[in-house]
Each structure stands twice: as structure tokens, then as C-alpha cells.
């Protein structure tokens, strides 16, 4: 959706009025394999051997970007401090989907209740182009959201 007031027209076509894309959200799926312990995360369980290849993303949650790294939430116990993780990251719900892998080291682990750990990882090997594109997806969408949100409200941007 074009939210730039200067580019808008009043000739709204029905396609603009009910646009299925308006109901789509960006989705990040992360699969994790612990290279140190040779386990993966799938359906909240630690998996071994062949099964780890199927490690599913629903139980790895991407929380925050940090400088050359990220904070994610994983089932407890999936890894220890200093472990090396292979993370398969897929960004869906955008025009050009992004799919790439990184390896990362576990720097901090915070054990939460409910069988979850919040872990901070820094990147070891990664393709800078993909990583920057990944970050840009969210930065750009946040910028669009902020522009639209405060224009619609008619208040100043904070």
C-alpha cells in the first residue's frame, strides 16, 4: 500500500479497496542446529541425528537484533554458553523472500520459566548481503508503519 500522501490518487480502484496483501504480515522462521552438541530444535524437543535436519522453526523465536547478532528464544536446554549454532533464517510474507544460513556463538543464556531460554548470540560466519537485507526488511517496514501511523492519527512523529 502506498502511504506517501504526495503519490496518492483519488481514483481508488476496487483492487485497492479490498487488497488481500493488506492482511499479510512478515514472518521470520528460524531453524536451529547446535553444531557443538549435534542437536536441533523441533517441536520443543531436542532432536538427534537425521531428525535434526528437520528442526522446525516454531519453537525458535527471533526477538531482537543486536550489533552483529541477535537475541532468540529457544526451548530449554538447547545449548550452552560458547556453543556454536547453525541458524537457518527464512523471511516470508515479502515480495522477495530471503533465506540464508548463519553460524553464531552463544554468548549469554537466561533461563526463563516455562522451559524456555533467552539466548544472545553473535554471528561467526554469515553473508553480509543477506544479513543486511534481513535487517533492512524490518527497518524499512517500521519506517513505513511509522509514517502511515502518525499521518493517519494526524499527530507528530515522536
Amino acid at each position, binding site marked *: 500500500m502506498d502511504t506517501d500522501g504526495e503519490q496518492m490518487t*483519488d481514483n481508488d480502484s476496487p483492487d485497492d479497496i*479490498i487488497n488481500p496483501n493488506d492482511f499479510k*504480515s512478515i514472518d521470520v522462521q528460524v531453524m536451529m542446529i547446535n553444531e557443538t552438541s549435534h542437536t536441533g530444535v523441533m517441536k520443543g524437543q531436542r532432536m538427534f541425528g537425521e531428525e535434526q535436519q528437520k528442526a522446525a522453526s516454531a519453537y525458535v523465536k527471533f526477538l531482537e537484533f543486536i550489533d552483529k547478532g541477535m537475541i532468540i*528464544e529457544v526451548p530449554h536446554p538447547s545449548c550452552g554458553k560458547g556453543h556454536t549454532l547453525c541458524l537457518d533464517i527464512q523471511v516470508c510474507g515479502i515480495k522477495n523472500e530471503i533465506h540464508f544460513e548463519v553460524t553464531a556463538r552463544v554468548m549469554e543464556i537466561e533461563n526463563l520459566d516455562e522451559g524456555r531460554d*533467552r539466548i544472545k548470540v553473535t554471528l561467526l560466519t554469515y553473508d553480509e548481503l543477506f544479513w543486511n537485507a534481513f535487517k533492512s526488511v524490518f527497518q524499512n517496514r517500521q519506517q513505513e*508503519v511509522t509514517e*502511515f501511523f502518525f499521518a493517519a492519527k494526524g499527530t507528530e512523529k*515522536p
Partner: protein
Amino acid sequence: MTPAQDKNEALFRKYIDPKKIMITDPCMGMRAGLAKMLTDMGARPGNIKLCRDYDTADQLMPAFKPEIVLCEYDLGPRCGLDLLQAHRAANPESKKSLFILITSNSSQSAVAQAAEEDIDNYILKPYTIDSLRTSIVRSALMKDYPTPYQSSIDEGKTALESGDYDTAIATFEKAMKLDPKPTLACFYHGQANLIKELLDFAQSDYNKGLAYNRIHYKCLTGLFDLLMKRSMHEGAYDVVKRIARYFPANPQRLTTVLRLAVMTNSFEDIERYYQIFTGIETRNEELIKYICAALVVCGKFYLRKESKSRALVLFDKASMYAGEKPAILREIVITLIAANMQKEASGFLKRFASCTHESPEFLAVRYVLQESSMPEVESIAEGEKLLSMGIHDAEIYKILIKRCLQSGDPEKAQNLVRAAIANCPNYEKDFESAMKPDAGQG
């Protein structure tokens, strides 16, 4: 951190120190991370409540009365914006409380809904901690240290709420000079004029606001309501299309678009809305009902234009979604019978879902369709039987009136007209014309 950021963080520390905070997010790691960040920024850990779902937060809200709510949009079957209502109810007087969505939902529909609800900010996950801190600090400080423009608007709103409309208008006029794009001031100026019944002035205010900012929600909805109030349907249709384009989440609004498309004879628009409707995964019952109804109206229009095949295509589309909505199928069958398309009407009768075969609509249209092949006495008996079952369908009355006249019983026909008008007052003229001398001949 720049000196300005330092200063803001210091002000925020003072702001947040006494505040009660609620964080609602299904993700434990998110709740923990946000609580830690706010504690680092000066919040007291004892003042923070963490909730994993809507129900927990909703139960806690009235007693805890948080002044800051950070909330995920997607809370299982409920939405974070539902919590906003509970928050406003718990803090009706607090203009300085903050409600911020921090969410993975980046869809335009969610953002637009949040803007409509006038929450304080919309922050996407995943974020960087610095960007999140900055957004929260700025949102809070705007509440605590409003600009002169915002202060004037708040002052005018207070005057408006107390019924002092002239003071309110003067204050909004003052506000208009304090901002290069004073859309909000124009809106409230329009509201004051609307209350004073100065409709032309109010319309001009909303248009002026939209000239500064064409997606301003309040001006758009204010203008729409005003045009509807003035029965200016063409203009209202244009405005509601624009609203629906930028604020797509509201099914009620989509139904208004459809209704106005019908009222303004924009039938080609309806066909295209249907195409797009089929692509939407999350259709609610209300939207389905309205799109079916709009397709039927559209089909009737083409039938009147002698474009039978086009009408049948539209009826076909409507019936696909109307299996368990007998009112839609009834309308189609009755319309086709009236157009002497009995064969096609019989086809649509078969589309009633079996669970609706006892419904008044099904029983009525089956009778209407089959009675022409019945002898007079049988037809009257069948029709009366349906009436005695409480099925007061206008079409049954029309047939009975006609049959009674044909059988030479005008007194009974007259009694039926009276009963028909009492039960189906919208069809009064139809019933009266059925009593005219030539009506019983055919």
C-alpha cells in the same frame, strides 16, 4: 548517546519512576526482555506486571490500573487492541497513560486498525533495543511535554466537551496557526461546527484537514458521516472507498462500501469487489452476507437490463457462499420467478443446504415455485397452511390474494391484504395492486 538523548532519558526516568506497567506478550522471552529494558530505564521492578495472554491481562487490568501498557497485537483468539478498551475503562481520566503495541504483526490491516484506535505507537518485532528505547521515550515525553499545538488542541477539546463551542472554535483556530499542517485542529474545528449544525463549515473544515493530510482518519470518517447525514451518497461512496483503501481491516466499513456501491448503482465495482473478496483468506460472516446481498442486487440490475446471462453468473456466485443463508437464496429464486425464469429458479432451489429445508425461506420459495401447477383449492390450502405455521412471506400473501380473486372470493382476498400489510408492511403497494380488477386474471 547524544546530549539530547541523555536529557530525554533523564526526563523519562523521572516520568516512569512511579508508573505502573503491564507487559502482555505470549512470548516469555519478550516479556522478560521488555521488563529488563524498562527497569534499566528507571521503572521499579515491583511496578511491572507480566501477562502471557489476554485473559490474564484483562482480569488484572481493573485492579492494577496500569499507566503504561506494552502489548503484542496477536494474543491468540483476542487482539491486543481489545485490551485497549479494558485499559481505557480502567483509566478513564488518564490522558498521560501510554498504550504501545510491540508486535510481530506487520500487516497494513493491523497498523491501520491501531491508528484508528489512536494508540500511542506501533513498534515492530524484531527491533534493536536502541530503536525501541528511543520510540518509547519519545512517545512518553510527547504525553508529558506536549507541543504548544497539541496543548491548544487539548484545551479546545476540553472546551468542546464542556459545551463551550465558541471557545473551542477560537482555540482550534489558534492551534491552526501553530503547526504547518494542522489537520487535527481542522478536524476538531469541524466537529465544533458540526455540533452547531453549521454543516457547510464542518464539511469545509474536514476537506481543509484532508488537503494537509489526505489519510487523516478522523477527517475522513468525519467527512463520511457528514455526507451520509446530508444524503450525499456519491460523495460518501468516494470517501468510504478512500477510507477502506487506507484502513482495510474493518469489515463493517467494507459492508458500507458495498451498500453505497449498490445505492450509487456502481454495479461494476461490486463484481470486482467479489473477485477480490474471493482472494481474502479471513472472511467473516458479515462480509460474506454483504457481498452475497450486493451480488444479488447487482444481478437484479442486470436482469432489469435484459442481461440474463450476466445476472445468472452473479446469482451463481452469490449462491456459492449463501448455502446456509436462506434469505439470499430466497431472494434469487423469487427474482427469477418474477422474471419468468422458472427453470433457473428451480435450479437455485436445489442449492438450499439440507439444514435449511425447514427454514421459512425455503418453504416459502418452494411453495411459490410449485403452486402454479396446483389446482386453485390446493394452492390456497397450501398457502394458508404456511401462514398458519407463522411463515408470513410477502410472496405467499401475493399468491393467495391472486388465487382468492380468481376463485371469486374478494372478501377473503381483502382480509388477506389486511393481514399481509400488518405482517409485511414494506410490500403494502404490491398487496393493494394485487386487488385491482385485472390482477386476478393472470
